[in-house]
């Protein structure tokens, strides 16, 4: 029983990072109605920018964090310009294929510059292990959880209290209505894209700082986890993305503990498959959103 609770705790922490990745995906999907396959690889560029700063200038956590964020945002701007802004509005499949091509490009570019298999990433050193009775909580996990919570709260404020947030939600809900009410669609879309990249950058930084080492596989990993968490949560809702991320984290942690690495993979994907068939509206359920209806079409 203690094991189960302990795994749940660890899973929730990792799951909060998944939730952030899913949140980034949801924001992009909401305003673009297209899938950005290069989301993870953009984060990868950021993480490696941070690692480079760390190894060459032995920079501390804050500059590394800022470099990660900057790298992810710049790479995402590149993706947005080429794969989304430049492609006609009705060609969602082309954007997907195009962002996949940029995924390949970014990943290979990173691999050319950083040829080793793994690189060191700075970790949160000197933080004490937290004990809650019989339970333990890694301090990195606490940082992860709290940062994710703070970020979600901040995002909520942006979405509900600012003009940009209003525009973003209008655009998410109905593109045509947004256009006729004078929202600068192209600009809001770009800004949303960059906001999503920044959120993804934070998630990537937290994950890299927890592991202490990074490889070029992280790009694909982030895309897959974010995509899966978004879909099991239910498309088009922020709450859904978070719930999906947390659920994925907990399921993975439990399966890893009880069934081992290969058991974890089998269980996670089998559950995902069954969940999609039985509950296509996602864990958050609720009303049909514009984004969800759009996803029902061919993207």
């Amino acid at each position, binding site marked *: 029983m203690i094991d189960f609770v302990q795994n749940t705790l660890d899973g929730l922490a990792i799951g909060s990072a998944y939730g952030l990745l899913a949140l980034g995906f949801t924001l992009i999907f909401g305003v673009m109605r297209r899938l950005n396959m290069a989301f993870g690889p953009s984060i990868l560029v950021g993480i490696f920018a941070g690692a480079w700063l760390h190894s060459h200038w032995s920079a501390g956590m804050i500059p590394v964090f800022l470099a990660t964020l900057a790298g992810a945002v710049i790479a995402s701007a590149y993706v947005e310009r080429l794969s989304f802004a430049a492609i006609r509005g009705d060609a969602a*499949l082309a954007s997907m294929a195009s962002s*996949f*091509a940029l995924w*390949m490009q970014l990943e290979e570019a990173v691999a050319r510059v950083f040829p080793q298999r793994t690189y060191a990433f700075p970790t949160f050193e000197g933080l004490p292990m937290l004990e809650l009775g019989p339970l333990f909580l890694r301090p990195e996990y606490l940082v992860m959880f709290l940062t994710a919570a703070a970020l979600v709260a901040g995002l909520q404020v942006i979405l509900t209290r600012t003009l940009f947030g209003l525009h973003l939600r209008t655009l998410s809900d109905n593109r045509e209505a947004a256009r006729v009410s004078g929202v600068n669609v192209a600009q809001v879309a770009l800004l949303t894209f960059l906001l999503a990249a920044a959120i993804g950058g934070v998630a990537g930084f937290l994950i890299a700082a927890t592991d202490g080492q990074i490889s070029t596989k992280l790009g694909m990993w982030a895309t897959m986890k974010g995509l899966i968490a978004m879909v099991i949560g239910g498309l088009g809702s922020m709450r859904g993305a978070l719930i999906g991320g947390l659920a994925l984290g907990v399921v993975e942690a439990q399966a890893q503990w009880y069934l081992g690495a290969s058991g974890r993979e089998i269980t996670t*994907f089998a559950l995902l498959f069954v969940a999609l*068939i039985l509950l296509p509206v996602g864990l958050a359920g609720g009303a049909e959103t514009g984004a969800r209806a759009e996803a*029902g079409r061919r993207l």
Partner: protein
Amino acid sequence: MDGYTISVLSNIGLFAFLAISAWILLIAGEISFGQQAYFAIGAYSGGIATAVWQWPFAAGVVIAVALGAAVGALVAWPTMRLSGLHYAIATLAFAELTRASLNVFTYRRDIEGFATGPDGANGFGDIRWVYEAGIEPGAYLAIIAGCLGAVIGLVALMSYGRGMARLRIVGEDPILAAMQGLSVTRTKIAAASLAGGIAALGGALYAHLATYIEPAQFSVMTGVHALAYGLIGGLGTVLGPILGVLIDIGLLESLRVFAGYRMIVFGGLVVLVLIVRPRGLLDEPTMRRVQAWLRR
């Protein structure tokens, strides 16, 4: 032809099966991230048939295609209710489930003093039927080309009859298709089954050329590539996905100038093509123009 050309051409042929498989589902209006699963099913079942059960090659290929088509239909049956992104993720989940299951799938028998058969993550070696039968690489390339020709012929036959039109109308507008009295679900299940069979055919041929296969080869990356080939080459004709494979493997891998930068060049090229031609190089308007020109 020298050995290198033969091996590049064989690779192009084998990936073409996977690309056509993903293309058929795209025409039927579904995005599949998981066609590599059927490639894996074909490779493993074909390999088990010839290496472990000692069946002849043709029987191995037939069982692989049958299994691929059956699993394709079986998976499509519950998932066709989903659509768009949900279907895409469901296929991804199925493919990763297949790969993860192959990682623990062990089935070994003693063949002529050697334990032969799939050994989980260690892979499945000694699929040697083609080599023991003394088939030269050039002759094997002819077999691959023949099978690919048969698949292209089948699709051409479907375009000649009503099959392809039916697939396209279901893909473009399911509601209109249903109003015309077409069963959307049945058409999509048939498309998924056909796509599964074609990918499994490619997989069986691949296993016998490579003689060694392992679960890691059938990752998401393989499947997403297959999907991208059709989108780059063009959705207008079955030659589109083959053109996509030709550009990626044929042009860039054989042009050693780009060694190490292949993906950077390929990625940039694809992005530029898609900005100008969102439905690929050989898109529908282009194909209509070609057909009109041929009819003159």
